[in-house]
C-alpha cells in the first residue's frame, strides 16, 4: 500500500501543474506547453536563493514567488500577446517555442547537473497504516492542498477572481461589463507561473531539479488536467491525485522504466473514451 502515499505525493505536484493548465485554458483557451518549465524554474530559483545567496527560507520563498508572478506576466506579454491574428496552431506553437527558450535559459544559467536543496523541515518518518510518509512528502501534500483551497477561495470570493470567472463564461460580455480582459489574461499566466514555482519549490528537496525536468512534469500535469476534465478546477486536483496513485501502483507492479509511458496511456485512453474527462462539465466542443 506504500504506493498510495508516494502516489499522493507526486499526485499533488501533478495537481498543481494541472491547475496551472486549467487557469490559463479557462481564461484564454490556450494550452500552455511551457507550464512544466515554470516548475523547473521554481526549483532553480529556490536553489539559487537558498544555496548560492544563502538567504533564509522565509525570505527566499516569497522572493521566488514574486519572481514567478513577474515571469508569468512577462511570458504572456512577450509571447502570447504579440501573436497577430492568433489561431489555435499559432498559440500551441508559440508556447512550444517559449518552452524551448525557457529550457535553454535554464541550461545556460544553471548548467546540466541535477541541483538540490536541503529539506525545509526536519526529517521525520510518519508511520501510517500499511506504509510510511516522510515529513517532506507531507509538506508537499499540505502545501498543494492549501494552495488549491486558497485559489478556489480567490476565484469564489474576491472581485478579481469573479472577473476571471466572467472571462471564462464570456470574454466579450465581460469586457463590456468593464472587466479588463487583457489584464486578466496576463494575470492568468502570472498565477499559473506562481503555481508552477510553488510546485518547484516543494518538490526540489525530494526529487532534485534538472533543466530538462519541465517536459515530463508539464506532460503529466496535462494528463492530470485531461483526466479530471480540462478546465475543471477540482477535476484537475482529483485528476492529479488519481494519476499519481495510478502511476505509483503501475510502478509497483511493472519495471519502473515503463512508468513514464503510463501517463500517456491515460491521456490517450481518456481522449478516446471520455474526452471531457472524469469530472468535466458538458460543454460545447471548442474548435
Amino acid at each position, binding site marked *: 500500500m506504500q504506493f498510495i502515499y508516494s502516489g499522493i505525493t507526486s499526485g499533488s505536484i501533478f495537481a498543481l501543474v494541472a491547475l496551472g493548465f486549467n487557469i490559463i485554458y479557462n481564461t484564454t483557451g490556450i494550452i500552455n506547453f511551457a507550464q512544466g518549465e515554470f516548475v523547473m524554474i521554481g526549483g532553480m530559483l529556490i536553489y539559487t536563493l537558498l544555496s548560492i545567496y544563502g538567504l533564509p527560507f522565509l525570505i527566499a520563498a516569497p522572493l521566488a514567488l514574486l519572481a514567478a508572478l513577474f515571469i508569468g506576466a512577462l511570458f504572456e506579454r512577450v509571447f502570447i500577446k504579440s501573436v497577430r491574428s492568433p489561431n489555435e496552431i499559432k498559440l500551441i506553437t508559440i508556447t512550444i517555442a517559449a518552452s524551448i527558450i525557457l529550457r*535553454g535559459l535554464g541550461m545556460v544559467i544553471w548548467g546540466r547537473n541535477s541541483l538540490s536543496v536541503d529539506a525545509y523541515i526536519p526529517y521525520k518518518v510518519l508511520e501510517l497504516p500499511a506504509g510510511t510518509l516522510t515529513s517532506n512528502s507531507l509538506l508537499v501534500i499540505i502545501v498543494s492542498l492549501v494552495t488549491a483551497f486558497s485559489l478556489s477561495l480567490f476565484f469564489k470570493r474576491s472581485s478579481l477572481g469573479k472577473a476571471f470567472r466572467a472571462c471564462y463564461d464570456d470574454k466579450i460580455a465581460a469586457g463590456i461589463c468593464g472587466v479588463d480582459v487583457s489584464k486578466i489574461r496576463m494575470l492568468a499566466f502570472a498565477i499559473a507561473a506562481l503555481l508552477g514555482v510553488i510546485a518547484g519549490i516543494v518538490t526540489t528537496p525530494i526529487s532534485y531539479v534538472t533543466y530538462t525536468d519541465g517536459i515530463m512534469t508539464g506532460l503529466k500535469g496535462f494528463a492530470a488536467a485531461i483526466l479530471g476534465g480540462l478546465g475543471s478546477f477540482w477535476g484537475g486536483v482529483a485528476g492529479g491525485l488519481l494519476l499519481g496513485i495510478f502511476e505509483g501502483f503501475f510502478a509497483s507492479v511493472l*519495471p519502473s522504466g515503463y512508468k513514464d509511458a503510463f501517463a*500517456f496511456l491515460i491521456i490517450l485512453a481518456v481522449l478516446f473514451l471520455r474526452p471531457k474527462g472524469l469530472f468535466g462539465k458538458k460543454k460545447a466542443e471548442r474548435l
Partner: protein
Amino acid sequence: MRKINYPFLILVLIILISTKFLIKNEYYLSIVIFGMFNAINASCFNILLGYTGIISLGQAAFYGIGAYFAVIVAASFGINPMLAIVLASLFSALVAFIIGYPTLKLHGHYLAMATLGFGMIIYVLMNEMAFITGGPSGFLDISKFSFFGVSIYGEHSFYIFVAIVFFLFTVLFEMFDKSYLSYKLKFIKESEFASKSFGINIFKTKLLVFSITAGITAFNGGIYAYYSGFISPVSFNFNYSIELLTMAIVGGLGTVPGGIIGAAVLTALPEFMASIEDYEMILYGCFLAVTIIFLPGGLTGLIKRILNKNASD
C-alpha cells in the same frame, strides 16, 4: 490548377549535383546528408500541419519505428536491407493507421497531446524493451547496405543514394502540391464544416495523409539507420519532433520549399555556431517564436515577398 514549378526542381537538382563536386570534406558531406533526412521529415510534417492542419508531435516515433523495424527485420530474417526498409515503411503506415483511427477525430491541442503521448510511449518502449531494441544504447554496427547489388558505403556513395531519394521525394511533394489532393487538404484545413458539406470524407482523407507521411518518414528512418550505422532511442525522442516542427514553421507552412529551406537553415546553423553550443536551444526557440510572431509565411514567404517586390519595381 497551377503548373509544376520546374525552375524550383531544376534548382534543387543543380544544388545537389554541385554539392557533390564542391564538397570533398566528409564531415561537411555528412551534414548535408543529415540535412536531407531532416528536409524529407520536415516536409512530411509540413504536409500534415501546413496543408491538412493535423498537428503531429509524434513524427520522431515514426522515424524511429522505420529505423528500428528495418534493422531488426533485416538482421533477424537475413533479408536485403532495402526490402526491410520498404517493409518498415509499410509497417509504420499501418501503425499510423491504427493510431490515427481514434486520434484524428481530435483537434488542436487535444490532437497535439495525443500524438505527443504516442511519441513518448514509443520512446519509452525503445528504451525499455531491451530484448528487442537493445535498450538505451540501441544497435551498433548495423550491417552493410546494398541496393540491387551495388554496395553503398561511406559518405560519398551514401550522398549519391540519399540525394537521389531526396530528389525523388521532392518531385513527389511538388506533384502533390499541384494535385487535386492538396487543394482538398487545404480546403479541409480552412473549414472542416464547409468541406464536409461538399461531400469530402474528412476523416478518411486525414487518415490517408497521416499514414502515407508516416510511411515516408519511416522509409527515411530506415535509410538513416543504415547510413549512420548506429541507432539509439535518443535520436527519436520528443526533441526531434519539436525540431521538425521548428524546421517546417521557420521554412514556411503549406509550401514545398518550406520544409527544405527550414531543414537546411536549422541543420546548418548549429555547425556555424559550434562555439556557442549551449545557446543552440535558445536560438531554436527564438527562431520559432520570431517566425510565428513576425513572419507568418516563414522564410519561403519572406523570399516570395522579396522576389515579388523586385519583379514589380
